[in-house]
Each structure stands twice: as structure tokens, then as C-alpha cells.
């Protein structure tokens, strides 16, 4: 599918760290090099298939936890095989690399490896809310949100994006990450100017509301 999906709020993956996510059934290792470059690769070392998300970021490389093979940021090329230290690894020895885009608020991934970068303006002022992992299909979550949020209408922007008002002057945008058939992550962002004193109360208020949506979606899915 040639489409960009959010996989994480930008601040959730610090430099020198490794995270694990999944998009439309495809497991991904999401890791940020010391320099700040964010990578999204298939979560499987090409050597013996071990999840790369078990590995460590060492500077500009990701090191697999099994045999300590190292792969370079950006290209994913294998740079070092400790069992044969003098040899240069072949360029074919690499995990599948997916394109990543950051808009200042969220990191977006496309599962089509040669997809063109999206053309969009950087996100304006606002506040990323806590992303909510939901054991429910994306359609279930979408339907629930469309019924309204915080007693206000929510409208469909596209299949995976919804918007509403969050109490003027703020708007709220929901971005759905389909993890697998039965799991969805709901990312959300308040849009508008927010002063520092409002930050934590807003985070808590919306977290309570969104976890209520999660609980309803999961109850519906359990039937």
C-alpha cells in the first residue's frame, strides 16, 4: 500500500534509541541514530531472522543482538560482521528499509520502499496527546470517534484521519495507525496555541477521554 501512516510522536524515539512497532501486519524496528536520523526497517535481521528491535543503537549503526552484525543508518547496509572482522560485508546483506518522514510532530512511514516523500508543510503549534494502543480493528475505532468526541462532532478527513473541535480555540486531529487486523494505535494532536500551564491538564483530560474510547472499542471487539 502506497500511503503514509503515523507510527510515533517524534519525541517518543530519542537519539540513540530503538523502538518496536507494527503497521498493517508488517513489524518495524524504529530507531534513531545519534545524529538524529530516524529509521524504519523490517524488524528482522537478514542473517538468522532475529528481531532487530532487540538490538542496540551504537552511534550511526544498529547492532543485532544475536551475532552483533551492524547496519548503517539510512541505507541499512551491513557494515561489520564480527565473525569475519577483516571482511567487507556484501551490499545485499541488509534488512528492508522503509521511507520515513517527520513533520515536527509525528513520524510517518510508507510500506512502499520507493514511495516519494510527501509534500506538506510542517505542523503548526499544538500538543501531541498520548498515543493509545487499542485492541480493536481500525474500523471499530473510526466508527466510535465519528459518533463524537467530548460531545463535539468529529469528521472524516480520510479513512485514517479524523478531525473535530476540542474546545475553542483548539482543534483535535486523530490519526489512526492500523497495527494488525485487530489492533490500532490512535495518535492525536491538539492544534492551536497552548500555554504552558494548560499542557498537563489537557494531556490528562484527553488521555482520560481517549482511554474511554479505547475501552469501548475493546468491549465492542470482545463481543
Amino acid at each position, binding site marked *: 500500500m502506497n500511503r503514509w501512516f503515523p507510527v510515533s510522536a517524534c519525541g517518543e524515539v530519542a*537519539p*540513540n534509541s530503538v523502538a518496536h512497532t507494527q503497521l498493517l501486519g508488517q513489524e518495524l524496528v524504529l530507531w534513531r541514530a545519534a545524529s538524529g536520523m530516524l529509521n524504519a526497517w523490517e524488524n528482522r535481521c537478514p542473517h538468522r531472522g532475529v528481531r532487530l528491535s532487540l538490538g*542496540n*543503537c*551504537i552511534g550511526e549503526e544498529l547492532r543485532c543482538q544475536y551475532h552483533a552484525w551492524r547496519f548503517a543508518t539510512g541505507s541499512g547496509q551491513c557494515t561489520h560482521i564480527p565473525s569475519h572482522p577483516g571482511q567487507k560485508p556484501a551490499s545485499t546483506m541488509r534488512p528492508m528499509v522503509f521511507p520515513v518522514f517527520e513533520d515536527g510532530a509525528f513520524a510517518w512511514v510508507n510500506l512502499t520502499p520507493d514511495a516519494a516523500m510527501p509534500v506538506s508543510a510542517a505542523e503548526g503549534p499544538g500538543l501531541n496527546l*498520548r498515543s493509545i494502543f487499542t485492541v480493536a480493528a481500525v474500523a471499530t475505532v473510526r466508527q466510535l470517534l465519528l459518533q463524537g468526541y467530548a460531545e463535539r462532532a468529529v469528521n472524516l478527513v480520510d479513512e485514517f484521519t479524523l478531525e473535530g473541535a476540542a474546545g475553542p480555540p483548539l482543534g483535535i486531529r486523530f490519526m489512526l495507525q492500523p497495527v494488525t487486523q485487530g489492533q490500532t494505535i490512535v495518535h492525536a494532536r491538539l492544534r492551536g496555541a497552548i500555554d504552558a500551564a494548560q499542557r*498537563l491538564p489537557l494531556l490528562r483530560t484527553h*488521555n482520560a477521554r481517549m482511554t474511554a474510547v479505547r475501552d469501548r472499542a475493546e468491549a465492542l471487539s470482545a463481543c
Partner: protein
Amino acid sequence: MLTLYDYELSGNCYKVRLLLNMLQVPFTARAIDFHPVREHKSDWFLKLNPLGQLPVIDDDGLVLRDAQAILVYLASRYDESGRWYPRDDAAALGKVSQWLGFAEGLTTTAGAARLHDTQFLDVDIGKCRAGAHALLRILDEHLWFAEQEGQQWLCSVDHPTIADLACFPYVMLSEEGGVFRMPYPAIRRWGERVKHLAGFKPMSGIFPAATLTPPGGSPPIPG
């Protein structure tokens, strides 16, 4: 010399080994033949701990069972900074105790699931895993909001307490019992911070941190 009655693969014993290392308290480990011999249920061991559980310590004649109780004792007796178990701050102490209780819940859910999958312990595995996920959801939300307020640890802004060590092992070993942690990014970041503490040592099933540089790039965190 303090004696620790120990099993290499026990998360509860590991908590105590961690604090002993971090406080630099010398000790002798007396290995108990846990699996499949079950030496911890033998007559001689039941005299030491009638519950037939590990860990037990013998500190110059003071015999204590229960991992959380041992952590309380070791911190009170040997931590000159008073930070690991803040006895002089009633509110902080209350919070630590709250999370020590939570750690016990992790043992009977995530810990039990792990023993079921690895050593064939007879438990209701579905109930254990569901129970573990319920606790991990609470933990992830707590840690996420703590991060929003610049707080790095379970109970305090800038230094770990025994609550962090009490919860760490069975959280980090949860996948061995089929409790997967992809939905819990804040837990992942907290686990990395624990791994960067001075005096940290891994155990089988917990991978060490890559280098001394914690995520984000700042220098090692003193214990």
C-alpha cells in the same frame, strides 16, 4: 558476610542481586537447585523459609524472606544517601510502598506466566497474561505522565528507588511468558534508564544496554 539464597533465573532474586551490586554490598550467593529438583521445597530450606520461596538472605544472623522486604532492609541498612528508600519523607515512602505492592502483582501475573511457559508451572495462563497486561497498561500510563513532568523514575524525579528495582525484572522478562511489550513505549524507555544505572548487571533473558551513553546522549546516571 551476607548470604543470599539464590536462583540464577529468579526475577525476585535478581532484584536483590541488583541492589546489592548498586549499593556495593559484598555477599555470597548460595545457589539453590530450583529446577527440576525443587530444593526450595526441601525440608532444610523450609526451616529457613516456611513459604518455600526465594530469595532469602542471612545477614549476620538476620534471616529475611520476600524480595520486597529484603530490598527495604538492604536500602535502610546500607544506603547512606537514603535515596533508595526515603524513610524521612512520608509521602515518598507511601509511593514506594504502593509500587512495591504493584511489583508483587507483577510476580503473580507476568512472573507466573513466565514459569508456566518455561518450566511448566500449572497456572491459568490466559488469566495470568491478561492480568499482566492490565498492570503493564497502568505502568505505561504512569511512566508516560511522569516523563511529561520530567520525572525519570517510578516514584521520584531524579533518582531511582527500590520501587524501580522491584518492578524491573518481571516487566523486562514478561515476553518469556507470552506477554509482549510493543504496546508500552514508556515502559521501554524506563527499562533502558534502569539498564544505564551504575552497578547494573544483566541476567539471563535481559539484554544489557549497549554502551554507557543513555538514550538522548547524556552521561551515565549515578545510582
